[in-house]
Structures are given as structure tokens and as C-alpha cells.
């Protein structure tokens, strides 16, 4: 097993486009993803899944499967020694189905065998008898008290209302709509994979796994295995993208159980189809919303009802719901609100975290409304948004005061200032024309449209959760070694951490130690939080080390340590002439410090949805330009202009990569990506049928990063991962409306929504 230790010696400090230390390995195919791991004497693991959305499990017959040569073990619910269920917020999801299956794809058994093909044959030979039940697939029906519960915990996972101000106010202008958002898949490229190595005493596991949060996995695996957490040692296997889908457990417990059962290393790796069944998705949602405004467009009150379909198990539904209801006002002032939201259980596939986490759904609804409001007030999409744009110090509908830097108006103005793309040239290459190379679009059917979207997004976890991060820094002979459990999913913490160490300590060489559970938690790589949280932890640890270095130098050279600073790669006396290189200053000493970064505490919402539940906020504006073939219903996104509130740019290329990548995912939700369900069954669990943006779908992106450093943030930088994918979806939908005149209350917008 190779270590993931990485060394870089480039002098790239914060603010520079430092290069990823894992870049060379990744372009050469040497980088070890979790699916690339192997061990001597290894077996393959595979999972049997339910073909029914709702059924009673009558019996399981393993006898024929055991007769297949090469099959070593088969496990079911009976073989789970500890807790039979798991889950991120509530432990309601069975490791293996026991009495009932509640969604298509629910795990029933797992097999260990000598070859993936043997596994496939063994799974086919397991005989399961079901009593098929009628599935509950309508989220609104699930709210009705008369609907029988499909789970002992009931069908409503959480209900939360937000009641503030005048509940009867009627605006001079009232606009309303009901909006729907389809189920999106994270569709990371690197499929779920893990390698579990059993300890020789059979009472522990070493697991290499692609995840978003090692310590949370450790906790959940330990509970299911009934082993102490310290006997479940997790090391990060290379992660091929995540986007929320790796926050929940998928194959971890199965893989660990098979390793303990067989006393052999087990490798599990999902296929693409199994991946669609094996991880949570973005919640489909239905949102009714009504805006009350003055004739001049000033928003006075919102009424909203939001229903999030959580599928069969809770996952993070309750937190997604809270993000939805608390962001439904958008980045706009609104003194009065009557909002209720439900996250419900159905026999649809479980839904949980995906980039944007509840805010994507809310944003599509509020931004669709802003354009209706603009039209009703005779204002432009830009004017209506500027008129209502919130600023620092404004109060949200939860009563929370925005303390974050809030350059909403600036985001809008700077986006508006970006030049529009040239009109479609008569000589355009067929691939630049909507419809593509089939030459299906006739020029006179192509209409260009422009649309807007602006959003607010909370950063870090909310509602009293202390999602702290830990980091350790050691300095010796001019080399800094950083240790943390912060998961790199592609976002770039692996390049940011050395930049922080170089900036704080004046070192050139930074060694990144293996990412594992051998140190305290870093929290999850999600919620746009790692730059702030783990960045804060690395920064804190490096500052402690720097203080100790100054004390050491001060003592040795008889200088007050308070006079010492780092200048480039030297320790320098601010007042005198003393100067010594950091390498020389740290030669022969070992300084070792660990730091935990905690954000400020937050509160739970009360029964009226009031409370300081979020840590901080970031803002972004998007303007989309699209070409639409109004006859065929085809759309090509030509340009996305955006200005994003980033606080401070720590690595320009990495930041731009986050912005462009998020925009592509938001584009996917706007016009391409949806898991299509038919009575709880996925119709398109493959990349042939679930369409993802390709290089030919990528619009031209013109991005402005607004730098107004955030005082609360350790490095002045806000999280930048989620905002890019949030308001781009409604901006594209609005541009299609602008081109077609259609209401388009649902995303993704399909050809039939445009032309029929």
C-alpha cells in the first residue's frame, strides 16, 4: 500500500495559482484512486439489491449461491453484529433489509468471491421471496396523516415553519407560482470503492475508502460492527469527485463485514448502475411561493410551502429542508414571512446531500418569482433584484442578522457589466448552433434569450452543530509537515494547505501526511466549509508553530520574540537588523502543534423558525445567454456571466475551476440532468440515459471574483464550492423563458416543455 504523502517545494503562498501537488500523478495515471487499490489474497465483494420499491421480505435462500465455485461468504442482516441501521442524522437505514425493502436498490445481501464475475453469478443465484406492496411515491401524499407510514419513524422526516411579522399583509402586487425541481445525481466519475483489511485478531479493520468524512464513516461503521471506533482505522483512498454523494455510507459497512467474516482483504467497487442505486441524490422538490410587494417592487412578504422528497430513508433530509426554508427569501430583504416546509419519506430513492444542499431548490423558486415580480412591476430583472438586494446588517426571515460581508448589489452590477456574447454568426460551425452536428436547427427557429439568477448560500453546518476541524503542523529543519483528516475530493485543499504553511511559516518545503483517522476529525468536505474550517485549522496550527519558533529564536539570539516576523523565507527582527532563514532557525529543533478550529456557535430554529441557525453566507449572481430552437425545444447555453462573493482569492486558478465546474453542474440541472422515476423505479441509471454536460455543452464562462475579505473567516476567504451551481440553474431557465415566453415552472427544462 503506497502512502499518500506528497511533497512540494514550490514557493507558492496564498494568493498565487499554486499547482496541485497531486497533479503530475493524476495526469500520468499514477494517482491511486480507491478503485485502484489491491491487496494480496484479496476477494471481491458485491451487493444484492431490491428490485422492488416497497415489499415485505419473506425469505432469502443462499444455498444455490454458496454452491458456486469461488464464493467464500454471503452475509445478510443476521450477520450484522452491532447496530442494524445507520444514517448521518438519524440512524434509520438498514445495513441490509430485514423485514421490508423500501426502495429499488436497497441492499439485501453481500457476497465475497474470487472474481467480480463470480460475484455477479452468486448474486443472481440468491433466491429472495418478496411480498410486493404498493409503493408510496407521491411526496405530497406522504404528508397526509391518513397515509400509512412506510417506516417506523413515520413519513414526515421533518416539518419546519418560519413565521415572522405580519401574517395577513397583502401586497399591491402579488405574484405566485408552483415550481418543481427534478432529482439530480452527483455523477462523480470515480465510482464508490473501498478496500478493507481485517486485523489478524478479527476485532478491527483497516479501510481505504473514497469518502467525504472519514471520522463520520468510522463512527457509523464501528456502531454496526460493534467494535470500538479506534479499531476502525480509515485512510482516504483517492477520491474521484463527490459533490455530496459520499457523505452517506454506501459500501463501507458491507465491505468491513465481509473482511471480518472471511479474514481476507475485500475490495468492493460499484458499477455505474449500482452507483445510481447506492448513493443519495438531490431532493426533488415542489415549491409553492407567493410574493407580496409594493408597486415599486419592494418585497413585503413571502408565503411558501416547500415539499422535499427524501425517499426511503432520512439521510440529511432534515438539514436540506432547513436550508430550503431559510433560504427561500433569496438574497433579498423580506420583513414578513409565512413559510412551511416538509421533508418526507417515500419509496423513491433516498435523497441527501448534493452541492447546494436545499438552496438549489429554493433558489429556482425565488428567482423564478423575481422575474414574475419584475414583469408585474414594469421593472427589468436587474432593477427588481437591485431594489431588494440585502446588505450586511439586514435581518433574515429567521431573525438572524446578516453579519457576513454581503455584496449582493455589487455581484449583480458586476455581472451586468460583463459584455454580452456576439450574436450567432451566419457562418457558425454546426457544432456551435443549438442542436449540434445533426444540423437539425433552422436559423429562423433560433431565438436568443437572456436570464438572471442571484443567490445566497449558507457556509458550514448549521443549527448548533459544531463541525470543527483539526490540523497538526510539525516544523523541523525548514520542512513543515501537515497532518489532517481533511478529505480531498478534487476541490483543492491539497494545494491550499501548503500555501497556508508557506505563508505563515516562510517555509518552501511542505510535506502532506497521509489523510486518515490518526488525528482528530476535519469534518466533512461539504457545505463549502473546508477552506474556512480546515484552512483555519492548518492556519492555527502553523501560527502556533511560528510562535514557538519565534520563542526559540528569541531565546537563542536574545531578542524579544514579539519583535520577530516572517518575511518571505526568513525570520526577521521588525526593529533591528537581525535576519535568519527559517531553515536555519528551525534546524535541529522539532516544533509540533495541533489546532482545532471551531466556527462560532449557532442555534437551533424554534417552532416559528426563528434563530441564528447559520454561521455565515456567500452570494453570487449569474446571467445566462441561451439560444433556443423554439420549434424543436432544443437549448444551447452560450454564455454564463457571473460575479461571486469569494471574500478573498487564495488560489486564482483553483477558484476559477470551482466556479466553472459548479456552473456546468447547474447547467446540467437546468436543461439535461434528471433521474427519471416510474413508480419508484429509476428509468435511466446509466450515463447513456442520464445526460451530463460534455465539452460541447460547456458555455463560455466570464467570471468576476469579488474580494471583500470576510472578517469572520480565518483566511478572509468564503467557501466557493456551492454558490456557482445554485443561481445558474434559474438564470438559464429564465433565459429560455425570455426566448420562448413560456412559464417553465420545472427544471430540467425538457424539449417538450418548450415546444408543446
Amino acid at each position, binding site marked *: 500500500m503506497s502512502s499518500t504523502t506528497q511533497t512540494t517545494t514550490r514557493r507558492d503562498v496564498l494568493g498565487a495559482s499554486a*499547482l496541485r501537488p497531486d497533479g503530475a500523478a493524476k495526469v500520468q495515471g499514477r494517482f491511486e484512486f480507491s478503485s485502484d487499490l489491491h491487496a494480496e489474497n484479496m476477494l471481491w465483494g458485491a451487493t444484492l439489491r431490491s428490485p422492488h420499491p416497497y415489499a415485505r421480505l419473506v425469505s432469502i435462500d443462499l444455498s444455490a449461491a454458496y454452491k458456486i465455485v469461488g464464493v467464500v461468504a454471503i452475509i445478510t442482516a443476521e450477520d450484522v453484529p452491532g447496530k442494524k441501521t445507520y444514517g448521518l442524522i438519524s440512524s434509520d437505514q438498514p445495513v441490509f433489509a430485514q423485514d421490508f425493502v423500501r426502495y429499488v436498490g436497497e441492499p439485501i445481501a453481500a457476497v465475497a468471491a474470487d472474481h467480480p464475475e463470480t460475484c455477479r453469478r452468486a448474486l443472481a443465484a440468491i433466491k429472495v421471496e418478496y411480498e410486493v406492496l404498493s409503493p408510496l411515491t407521491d411526496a405530497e401524499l406522504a404528508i397526509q396523516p391518513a397515509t400509512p407510514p412506510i417506516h417506523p419513524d413515520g413519513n414526515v422526516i421533518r416539518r419546519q415553519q418560519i413565521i415572522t411579522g405580519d401574517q395577513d399583509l397583502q401586497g399591491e402586487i402579488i405574484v405566485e407560482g408552483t415550481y418543481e425541481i427534478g432529482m439530480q445525481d452527483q455523477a462523480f466519475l470515480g465510482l464508490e470503492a473501498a478496500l478493507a483489511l481485517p486485523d489478524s485478531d478479527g476485532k478491527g479493520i483497516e479501510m481505504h475508502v473514497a469518502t467525504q468524512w472519514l471520522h463520520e464513516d468510522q463512527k457509523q461503521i464501528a456502531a454496526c460492527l460493534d467494535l470500538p471506533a479506534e479499531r476502525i482505522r480509515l485512510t482516504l483512498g483517492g*477520491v474521484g*469527485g463527490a459533490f455530496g454523494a459520499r457523505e452517506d455510507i454506501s459500501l463501507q459497512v458491507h465491505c468491513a463485514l465481509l473482511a471480518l467474516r472471511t479474514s481476507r482483504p475485500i475490495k468492493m467497487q460499484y458499477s455505474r448502475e449500482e452507483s445510481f442505486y447506492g448513493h443519495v441524490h438531490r431532493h426533488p422538490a415542489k415549491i409553492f411561493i407567493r410574493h407580496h410587494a409594493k408597486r415599486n417592487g419592494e418585497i413585503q412578504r413571502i408565503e411558501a410551502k416547500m415539499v422535499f422528497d427524501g425517499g426511503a430513508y432520512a439521510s440529511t433530509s432534515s438539514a436540506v429542508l432547513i436550508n430550503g426554508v431559510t433560504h427561500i427569501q433569496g438574497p433579498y430583504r423580506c420583513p414578513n414571512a409565512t413559510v412551511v416546509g416538509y421533508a418526507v419519506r417515500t419509496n423513491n430513492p433516498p435523497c441527501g446531500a448534493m452541492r447546494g444542499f436545499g438552496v438549489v431548490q429554493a433558489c429556482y423558486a425565488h428567482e423564478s418569482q423575481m422575474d414574475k415580480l419584475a414583469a408585474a412591476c414594469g421593472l427589468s430583472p436587474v432593477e427588481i433584484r437591485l431594489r431588494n438586494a440585502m446588505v450586511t446588517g439586514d435581518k433574515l426571515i429567521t431573525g438572524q442578522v446578516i453579519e457576513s460581508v454581503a455584496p449582493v448589489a455589487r455581484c449583480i452590477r458586476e455581472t451586468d457589466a460583463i459584455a454580452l456574447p456576439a450574436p450567432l454568426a451566419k457562418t457558425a460551425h454546426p457544432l456551435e448552433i443549438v442542436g449540434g452536428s445533426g444540423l437539425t436547427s433552422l436559423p429562423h427557429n433560433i431565438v436568443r434569450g437572456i436570464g438572471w439568477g442571484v443567490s445566497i448560500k449558507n457556509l458550514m453546518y448549521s443549527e448548533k452543530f459544531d463541525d470543527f476541524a483539526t490540523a497538526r503542523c510539525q516544523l523541523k529543519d525548514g520542512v513543515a509537515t501537515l497532518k489532517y483528516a481533511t478529505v480531498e475530493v478534487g476541490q*483543492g485543499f491539497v494545494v491550499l494547505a501548503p500555501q497556508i504553511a508557506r505563508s505563515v511559516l516562510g517555509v518552501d518545503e511542505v510535506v502532506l501526511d497521509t489523510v486518515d483517522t490518526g488525528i482528530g476529525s476535519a469534518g466533512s468536505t461539504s457545505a463549502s466549509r473546508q477552506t474556512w474550517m480546515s484552512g483555519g485549522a492548518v492556519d492555527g496550527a502553523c501560527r502556533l508553530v511560528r510562535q514557538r519558533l519565534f520563542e526559540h529564536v528569541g531565546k537563542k539570539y536574545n531578542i524579544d520574540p514579539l519583535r520577530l516576523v516572517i518575511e518571505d523565507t526568513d525570520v526577521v527582527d521588525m526593529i533591528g537588523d537581525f535576519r535568519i532563514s527559517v531553515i536555519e532557525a528551525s534546524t535541529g529543533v522539532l516544533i509540533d502543534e495541533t489546532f482545532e478550529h471551531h466556527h462560532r456557535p449557532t442555534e437551533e430554529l424554534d417552532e416559528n423558525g426563528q434563530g441564528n441557525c447559520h454561521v455565515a453566507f456567500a452570494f453570487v449572481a449569474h446571467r445566462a445567454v441561451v439560444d433556443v430552437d423554439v420549434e424543436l425545444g432544443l437549448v444551447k447555453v452560450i454564455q454564463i456571466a457571473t460575479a461571486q462573493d469569494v471574500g478573498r482569492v487564495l488560489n486564482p486558478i483553483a477558484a476559477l475551476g470551482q466556479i466553472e465546474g459548479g456552473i456546468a453542474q447547474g447547467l446540467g440541472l437546468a436543461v439535461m440532468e434528471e433521474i427519471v422515476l416510474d413508480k419508484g423505479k429509476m428509468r435511466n441509471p446509466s450515463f447513456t440515459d442520464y445526460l*451530463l454536460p460534455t465539452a460541447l455543452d460547456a458555455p463560455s464562462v466570464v467570471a468576476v471574483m469579488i474580494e471583500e475579505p470576510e472578517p469572520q473567516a480565518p483566511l478572509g476567504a468564503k467557501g466557493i464550492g456551492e454558490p456557482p451551481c445554485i443561481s445558474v440553474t434559474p438564470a438559464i431557465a429564465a433565459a429560455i423563458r425570455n426566448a420562448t415566453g413560456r412559464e417553465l415552472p420545472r427544471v430540467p427544462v425538457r424539449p417538450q416543455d418548450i415546444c408543446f
Partner: protein
Amino acid sequence: MNSNSEIYSLTVNGKTHEVRDSWVGESLLYVLRERLDLPGTKGACEQGECGSCTVIMDGQAVCSCLVMAATAIDSEIRTVESLSVGDSLTEVQDAFVTEGGVQCGFCTPGLVVAIEHLLSQNPDPSEIEIKEAISGNICRCTGYGRIFEAVDKAVSVRKAKSS
């Protein structure tokens, strides 16, 4: 798993490899990764939709997940591992690193192979030719912007070197 097993040879990156004790239904992707210790080629869709498993077979860029290994016995196969060793990256690989074309990196080997193949056929491609050439390679992280930059940079570095 010994049923239907055969012994055959594959020529990969100029070397002949004997494949023993295998099941004949194995894809070229599986054999490269699991039997020949060449895990640089990635698998992500098993349907030829995402391009992560792109290799060069007899001068053509193909999805190795769609090729049965046992049918490739008379072919010359080149994988990402053949492009460079150690610190000496190709212009395309270097540009991917310097221009931010790499995030999670899972699509990267397939994209690098596809772009190397494009530039070997067409050293100075237009923007639309680049997009078309890599439209079979899905990247979920970057939105492609930095990848386009990387191709432009590789092309200009190559031009500068050859002039």
C-alpha cells in the same frame, strides 16, 4: 474463476503480456487494470459514454471498456502509462497541471490520451475541433474551461518547440 479460461497475449505499450487464468468475457479495461498492473486507465460507466477508459488501439482512440480483451490479441495498445515516466511530463500533461485542468483527476488519464491522440492527428486544432474531439470524455469537476486552456497551452508550447 477458472471456467472458460484461456491463455492469450496482449501487446501493451510495446511489451507483450501473457494473460493467464482469465475469463474470456473480461474487457480490455479489466485486464489492463486488474491483470497487467496498468491501473492508469479508469472505468466509470462501462458503456463507452464517459471516455475515462480511453486507450489507443492500432492508432485509434477507443473506450477500453467496450473492447473484449481477448479480441485485442493482434492489436497494438497504448495506455496513459506509455506517455511519460518520472518527472518528464508531456506538453499536454504539463499543461493540464499548470492550467488547472486537473481537479479530482479521475477523467484526466482518458482526457490526456484523447488529447494526445487529437494532437498527433491534428497539431493545430480549432476550438471546435478540440471540443468535438473530447466531447466523448466527461469531466464532472472542471466544467471544461481549464481543460480547453490546457489544450491551447500544449498546442502553443509544441509549436514553439518545433519552430
